[in-house]
């Protein structure tokens, strides 16, 4: 499935493997969280990068141990109205994860900007909408009232625009 990342549409080179699928010798693989827990010992030695598909019911603190080894975390959207992953994404960034954070499943163009702001940086986009709808939708608003959001496309924070004379406000968080 194509991905939207850094403002362009690219192909997905990761290999997704299920709970029971045989593991390839090498290559970048994404495994379900349950498998990460079960096979952690051997997965650390895998020849290639490691990613995980997290679930909406697990607690983010549980990931802390694995973070240094992870190069991709995928958060699923079972439906586009299920907003749990927005909070999970922020929590994952708050505990210090800086690499790729991907939104998968039922995602709509009009939601991409919010997702970018909470720390997602790649999106499984399917073929329902054309590339330019995705790109346009990801930069609909140039301002946000909240502080401390991710603003990869250069949106501004109303607060810091208003109080420019103030000492440099908190650093922006950085995504991978």
């Amino acid at each position, binding site marked *: 499935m194509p991905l939207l990342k850094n403002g362009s549409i690219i192909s997905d080179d990761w290999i997704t493997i299920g709970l029971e699928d045989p593991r390839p010798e090498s290559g970048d693989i994404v495994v379900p969280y349950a498998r990460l827990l079960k096979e952690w010992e051997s997965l650390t030695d895998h020849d290639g990068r490691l990613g995980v598909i997290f679930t909406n019911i697990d607690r983010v603190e549980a990931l802390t141990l694995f973070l240094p080894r992870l190069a991709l975390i995928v958060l699923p959207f079972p439906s*586009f*109205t*299920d*907003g*749990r992953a*927005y*909070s*999970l994404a*922020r*929590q994952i960034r*708050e505990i210090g994860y800086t690499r790729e954070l991907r939104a998968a499943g039922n995602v*709509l163009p*009009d*939601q991409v*900007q*919010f*997702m970018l*702001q*909470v720390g997602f940086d790649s999106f499984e986009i399917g073929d329902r909408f054309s590339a330019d*709808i995705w790109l346009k939708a990801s930069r*609909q*608003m*140039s*301002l*946000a*009232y*909240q*502080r*401390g*959001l991710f603003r990869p496309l250069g949106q501004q924070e*109303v*607060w810091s*625009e*208003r*109080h420019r004379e*103030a000492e440099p406000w*908190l650093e922006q968080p950085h995504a991978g």
Partner: protein
Amino acid sequence: MYRYDEFDRQFVTERVAQFRDQASRRLSGALTEDEFRPLRLMNGLYLQLHAYMLRIAVPYGTLSSRQLNTLAFIAEKWDRGYGHFTTRQNIQFNWIKLEDTADILSKLAEVEMHAIQTSGNCIRNVTTDQWAGAAADEIADPRPVGELVRQWSSLHPEFSYLPRKFKIAVTGAPNDRAAVKVHDIGLRLHLNDKGERGWEVLVGGGLGRTPVIGVTVRDFLPEHELIAYLEAIMRVYNLYGRRDNKYKARIKILVHELGADKFRAEVEAEYARRPHADTKVEERELQRISAYFAPPKFEKLPRWSATFEEARARNKEFAAWVKTNVAAHRIDGYAIANVSLKPEGGIPGDATADQMRVVADLAQRYAFDEIRVSHHQNLVLPHVRRDDLFAIWKVLNANGLAASNIGLAGDIIACPGLDYCSLATARSIPIAQSISRRFADLNRQHEIGPLRINISGCINACGHHHVGHIGILGLDKKGEEYYQITLGGSSSESASIGTILGPGFAGEDVPDAIEKIVNTYLAHRQPGEEFLAAYRRLGAQPFKEALYAAA
């Protein structure tokens, strides 16, 4: 009142452009109705029985005359010449076309208004005391904090796809006129012995099919921590609130299922874990906002107004209006004038475009250009000179706006019900109208004293029936509308949920039933005892006997 700066303006303008694009994609078929639904809801657009309904935010219920005039313009140009003020201090237009919506939103943006987050599973328009900044009993004006919360919650990327809608109410007075105990989050201002401000945080109140009084999770939250703490509550709710059943998705259910202590512990743990630097309420931002809510330039006036006293002595109708519709102002020589949108037999909360213009004009001439919307679906001129009250009343009276019934039997709250609403199980407007006619005699209303009658057309409780002294809920039994009556509800600082009396009544029998209840109260009350107090003393028994004994 708050004025947009260049950023607020740009924000709202971009939002309109975004919606224009979304609506055109829907009209062209590029978006399905399912995909468009959450987008339009986040812009206040509902699909109703007969047409689209647009709900416009009136943040913390405050309007300028220019804004109210614009609402009048919209009512005439794009609706049928009237609008409906709601129990959430908003206004709804019931006959809107999808094609016109973006133009309406542009028109609103010109006067610093919008419909952002007036529906959908997001943080809704913040509500507050309709007398904010004017009431004699107030500790401080809650609106700067209301505005702070409005900005923080506007298009919050983390909290726009919550399990269910989320309502926040704020009050700065000990007498709660904002019903904070029946909101998802209620905030009450307190001062400590050092005179510092802190907020009591209540969570998990709500009406709907499971009415609950909120629990206090913090007694005294320092003001600069407010937003950070709200974020912690919202995050716990967003992550753990139920999504499997929309009737169990409100935060009240989460609080109930976890238990208040466990819920509080979750929030505190999340709060402790989060970095707060970027959510701290900065003094300079609060000051910037507060400056907009600085009190108007009141004159130094004597407490006693000869003009007013004379008029009151001469004119009985005016005197009756003063008794119920005028409230004490914190400044000598000033008063709060409440404009009832509940004329005898009228539709509660409806105002015509002409009436809106009349009130806007009065505000401009006499009230420092301010109007408020109350959650009882009335309007308020919050700062008027006592000297001007008679002149104001004459204008109101000439325009069908001088019903002297604020807080009395005729001041009924009612939702749109089956006349408009696709979820309704029964009509509520005609019931309100028939009760209003039954109690048309104003002397009798005054004799009865303070009485809240609230009517909802289904279990969703938009008409606040659970917290009416007398609550009426319209239901459907095998295709017949019937009405269940509850007694003893209240949304004040001593909030309570009403108790069901017994079997329901057919619509045409409701006024009789209400009359029997009122007569029972009159027969049993002690001198000076109001309806609610009498009910709390007597219990349901005498009322049950009066209603059901004969039958």
